[in-house]
């Protein structure tokens, strides 16, 4: 689903990604972990064609990321979901549905279903600038659920959420991941949540991949927090 072959990204003299190679298989729940400034967001932006690679090859759904077609069936939730404030919660989710090709009654039904799943159906008529941060993030998740995305990319999804919202979001991700056809790519620095929901991971630091592989095999009984701390500290 995602293949990175020796990719590098430079911002001026700063090397944000340094010869990164990794692959994410279909149906996996993959965590890209690393401390702040490790290059995780740059990797996600590269995946979505928002920044251009300096070197290497990056494939999404078997196509070069520079090809817009590679993003068909891909849902993306940024760290802080925000959209044009004049939209209502319903209108915003509906817009994402429309952009993914939904129409008519199917669009309406799926929009309502998505709003219901993330618990924002009651505030569906409220405008985006009048809802809380947690509700906004849930609306963002609803934009992913409205269409049948085969790959979901979550950029720091737990950032800034309260414990209750984190628990709810974790449950939603677990539900999303339960579909064996769906791939979930999570980019995060909050380790405690990742261990429970991800099959595979890669740890990135200073733009380099330190390790990559199956979560269970890499940890071999240790906690992710201890493993991560040791690995990053040793570097």
């Amino acid at each position, binding site marked *: 689903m995602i293949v990175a072959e020796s990719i590098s990204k430079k911002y001026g003299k700063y090397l944000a990604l340094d010869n990164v190679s990794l692959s994410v298989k279909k149906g996996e729940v993959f965590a890209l972990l690393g401390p702040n400034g490790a290059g995780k967001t740059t990797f996600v*932006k590269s995946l*979505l*064609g*928002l*920044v*251009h690679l300096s070197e290497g090859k990056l494939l999404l759904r078997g196509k070069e990321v520079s090809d*817009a*077609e*590679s*993003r*068909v069936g*891909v849902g*993306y939730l*940024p760290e*802080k*979901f*925000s*959209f*044009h*404030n*004049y939209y209502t919660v319903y209108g915003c989710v509906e*817009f994402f549905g*429309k*952009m*993914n*090709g939904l129409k008519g009654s199917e669009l309406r039904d799926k929009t309502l279903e998505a709003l219901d799943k993330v618990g924002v159906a009651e505030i569906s008529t409220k405008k985006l600038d009048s809802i809380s941060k947690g509700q906004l993030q849930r609306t963002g998740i609803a*934009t992913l659920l409205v269409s049948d995305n085969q790959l979901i*990319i979550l950029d720091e999804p737990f950032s800034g959420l309260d414990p209750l919202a984190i628990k709810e979001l974790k449950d939603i991700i677990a539900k999303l991941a339960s579909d064996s056809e769906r791939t979930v790519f999570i980019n995060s620095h909050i380790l405690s949540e990742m261990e429970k929901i991800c099959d595979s991971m890669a740890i990135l630091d200073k733009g380099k991949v330190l390790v990559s592989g199956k979560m269970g095999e890499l940890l071999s009984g240790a906690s992710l927090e201890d493993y991560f701390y040791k690995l990053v500290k040793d570097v």
Partner: protein
Amino acid sequence: MNLGIIKILTENTIAKEYRNKALLFIFIFTLGVITLSTMLLDFINKNFNITEGAQIGDKGFFIMFLAISAISTVTSIILGLNCIKSDFESSSISQILAFPIKRIEFLIARVFGAWIIALIFFLFSIGYTILMFSLTSSGTFINGSLFLATISMGANMLTLITLSAFISLYIPKLFSFIILMVFRTYTAATGSYLMSLGPDKLFADLSVFKVINLFFYFFFPRMQEMDSYSKRFLEGVDFDISSLAFFGHYFVAFVILFSLFGLLFSRKEI
């Protein structure tokens, strides 16, 4: 080209831009100007015993068309400056570009959507003027000349929106607005001057400034000349086949401008 996505994004642009407060203010201001102008015309007709009302109405309508055109220049710049910049300001740009859409398709949708709003603004103002003038004058205002003048004005609006959207990516809005107003005035003045020189003197006595002026004259759509076509159409001059060279140049220069915009935007990192 993914026409389905372009259509949805164009609708989204229209929904986004018609809420623009500056635009709303200018719209109300324009309606006020039209109403006051009509009242003034009515006052002159009634109090100064002018019997040839149709003539005055025609002249008044011509002046109002020019005034609305000038206001439309401002609205086009405002719409152009906002149509893409607001996606950056609301941080929604990364989410929109994460859809399977090419950047050029995004640009087309944003610029086209803003142009539709600018055209509606223009047509509504002209329509209101016709309505008001028809109350005080016996002139006939809706004709082929008006149609041609509107098309040529529409072309200028599209060019200005494209240019504004382009500049807004690199320069803050207020400065962009000032730069564009100055640029519009500057190219209008130099364009008129170069046009008056005629082909034989165009490349004579070359100086640095003249070379710059010639660059804009040849590689940018000639908005001033398009304006003068609008006026000529309104004055009853028919479309002349010899004008095709000008319209052809305008079209090619616009395509080059838009392509350059597309190229630079596709290289922009979000």
